[in-house]
């Protein structure tokens, strides 16, 4: 399906739609009156109210995967008018204003092509909303797994506010249709790519040289534990089981502030029952527990087959496992409740972590409160962009940056105007 300026078209009309976009619709929209921020805020507010009233529940049940309602509930506060206004003030406030030479004005980039992510329902709509808030015309390439939710949301939004229609397009086209993607990219002033290295590299090849590349790539996160003895580890264990290691912010490796293998081994022995407890309470179906157990078995086998001389120690548990590795590499864990433990004394932090700059995201820091400031500063210097409590690694905070940047700022340009 294609969503073009308020109407739904069949996929067969892709080519004509892009031709029309290039020849008529983009020039017309961009040369017309700009998209008023208040119009966008009002429409989003109205959509939020529909969501709260349950009017969109049918839509969610029909199109979104199970669990989407809960996920939406968690991000709902960020979509309130108040939160969006705060975000605009935080991210764009102070960019415009008088200068010694005259003044600076903030304008949209123009046309944004969003290569939207498939890992969370609602994100394709969210990235387009960021584009709308900054006054851009948005072309969204939907992810493979989008079962119609995004187009339904766009339709709802343009019904609530028809003035948004010329600013929103969505295309359900496969990534291998590079010809169509190239044509869409040729229209864009900014290409917003969400996804792994493959997606990022593919879009770098397809985007025209003049387009600004805005990349929200995949990331890795870890927990950092210092003087943890006696501290509560259950929040960390619950985080590991709940996110299954699948998010950018999921803990893959638990780094321990120690040089001693024996201390790390002791930690694994103590942490395993805590992790098992989290698995027992979080896995509500046999299918979930079975998945954890299969990945735990796989963790054991991969140690034997792929890392025979490593000296790693595997601690298999019930539907989960802990693997103590001797190196300090930040790497993907065995997922689904199977986590890696490594030693990384604080003196080595600045040496080890910068190797992963551009990949680092969250550090869940657990330490006595007297040491928290110092360690947070160290982690920040090492390249980490978010430092949270281990239990909150995957929580979203209002006003937080996205992978170290303020996204709205990337979707606009500052125009300097000299006074005669």
């Amino acid at each position: 399906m294609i969503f073009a300026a308020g109407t739904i078209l069949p996929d067969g009309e892709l080519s004509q739609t892009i031709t029309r976009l290039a020849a008529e619709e983009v020039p017309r929209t961009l040369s017309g009156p700009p998209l008023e921020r208040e119009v966008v805020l009002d429409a989003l507010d109205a959509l939020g109210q529909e969501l709260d009233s349950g009017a969109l529940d049918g839509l969610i049940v029909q199109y979104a995967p199970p669990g989407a309602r809960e996920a939406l509930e968690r991000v709902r506060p960020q979509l309130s008018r108040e939160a969006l206004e705060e975000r605009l003030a935080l991210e764009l406030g102070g960019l415009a204003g008088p200068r010694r030479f005259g003044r600076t004005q903030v304008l949209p980039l123009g046309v944004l092509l969003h290569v939207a992510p498939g890992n969370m329902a609602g994100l394709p709509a969210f990235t387009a909303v960021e584009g709308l808030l900054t006054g851009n015309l948005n072309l969204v390439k939907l992810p493979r797994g989008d079962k119609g939710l995004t187009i339904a949301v766009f339709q709802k939004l343009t019904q609530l506010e028809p003035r948004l229609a010329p600013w929103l397009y969505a295309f359900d086209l496969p990534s291998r249709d590079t010809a169509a993607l190239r044509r869409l990219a040729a229209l864009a002033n900014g290409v917003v790519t969400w996804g792994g290295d493959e997606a990022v590299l593919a879009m770098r090849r397809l985007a025209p040289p003049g387009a600004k590349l805005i990349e929200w790539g995949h990331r890795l996160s870890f927990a950092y534990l210092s003087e943890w003895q006696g501290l509560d580890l259950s929040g960390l264990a619950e985080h590991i089981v709940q996110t299954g290691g699948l998010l950018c912010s999921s803990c893959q490796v638990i780094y321990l502030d120690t040089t001693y293998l024996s201390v790390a081994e002791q930690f694994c022995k103590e942490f395993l029952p805590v992790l098992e407890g989290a698995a027992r309470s979080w896995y509500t179906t046999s299918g979930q527990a079975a998945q954890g157990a299969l990945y735990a078995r796989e963790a054991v086998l991969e140690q034997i087959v792929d890392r025979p001389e490593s000296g790693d120690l595997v601690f298999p548990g019930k539907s989960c496992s802990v693997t103590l590795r001797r190196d300090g590499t930040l790497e993907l864990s065995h997922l689904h409740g199977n986590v890696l433990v490594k030693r990384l004394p604080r003196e080595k932090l600045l040496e080890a972590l910068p190797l992963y700059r551009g990949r680092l995201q969250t550090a869940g820091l657990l330490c006595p409160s007297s040491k928290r400031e110092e360690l947070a500063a160290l982690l920040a210097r090492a390249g980490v962009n978010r430092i949270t409590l281990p239990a909150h690694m995957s929580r979203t905070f209002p006003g937080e940056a996205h992978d170290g940047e303020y996204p709205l700022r990337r979707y606009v340009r500052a125009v300097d105007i000299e006074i005669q």
Partner: protein
Amino acid sequence: MLSRQKLFWLSPPYDLPGSDRRFLRAVRDNCAYHISHCPEYRAICKAEGFSPDDIKTVEDLAKLPLLPTLFFKRHAVFSMPQWRMGMKVTSSGTSGSFSRVGFDWGCIFAEIPMVLRLGFYHSLVSPRPAHYVVLGYKPGKQDRMGVARTMFGLTHFAPPLSRSYALRWRNGSYVPDLDGSVKRLRALERSPFPTRIVAFPSYLWFGLKRMEELGLSVRLPRGSKILLAGGWKQHYAQEVDKGTLYALAERVLGISEDCVHEFFGAVEHPVFFNSCKNHRFHVPVYSRVLIRDVYTLKPLPMGEVGLVNLITPLINATPVTSAMTDDLGMLTPGESCGCGLKSPVLTILGRAGLADITTCAAGAAELLGKGEGF
């Protein structure tokens, strides 16, 4: 290595106690073969302190190193060079990743009596020619999917007069052609020969639903059958009750419930499981099934639900002796089925971790074989 052929050629298909000795002997030989020819399997046995001599009784089968299908998806492990294999087959890759399993000539030779005996036992073999309508893949050189192979195999039990396929390989991917199949069925209504529909249950369900919605129905000639292979695959969420599916088949195609046969198997365990007249899967002598606890993977007693572990000495080319599927299921005593077969009944109830996995952790999409979220 004759122990395997003895098991497959000499055993009556459902006499489990009578075949225990042959089965254990074949498993020991099969394990010993993998240990001496597959370095990965050897390393796992060594690490887990397992030796084929540990297998003395049927209960000892639980000691076999357990390899999940996930392992075969991530590792291409073989116990012989590829030129010695009869063929290589992959799982259907429902979610983007697939297992690679090699089949040796000895395995293919052992499959012959298994398929023939079971085919006769379940009245699938018929000298009367039939038309085949396959709601599945057309096997081609470009792919090696096990299900395509099984479905193609199923079109030989009665001499094939014609074959038509509902999924066609076009421009690098499969496209459904259900409308074409409906047209074909209408034409076959008037044939003097019966029709055999070979299908994925999900495709049959969607196809029949579509026909019913359009108000279409056919009356296929007497002796027509429906053969169902493969699981519900990506349509698990829409899985329907078997009774509802049979009733729909009767209404839309005129094929009665007793002419619907189901099969179960996996690329990692290519034993030919057939449904009995009560539509239950009794474990045949070529296989032993253990149900394992979803937390600890320890074997569970009869009647409890857990992960399905399938054991067979069938394959020498790939160490699939004891394969751990993603399926959840249970075993119940065969006697309680009422069809006359005494071997235990395997019931598949669901699948581990159904939720479609999508991820933004760096590298995880590739590891999970789900492709990029792009």
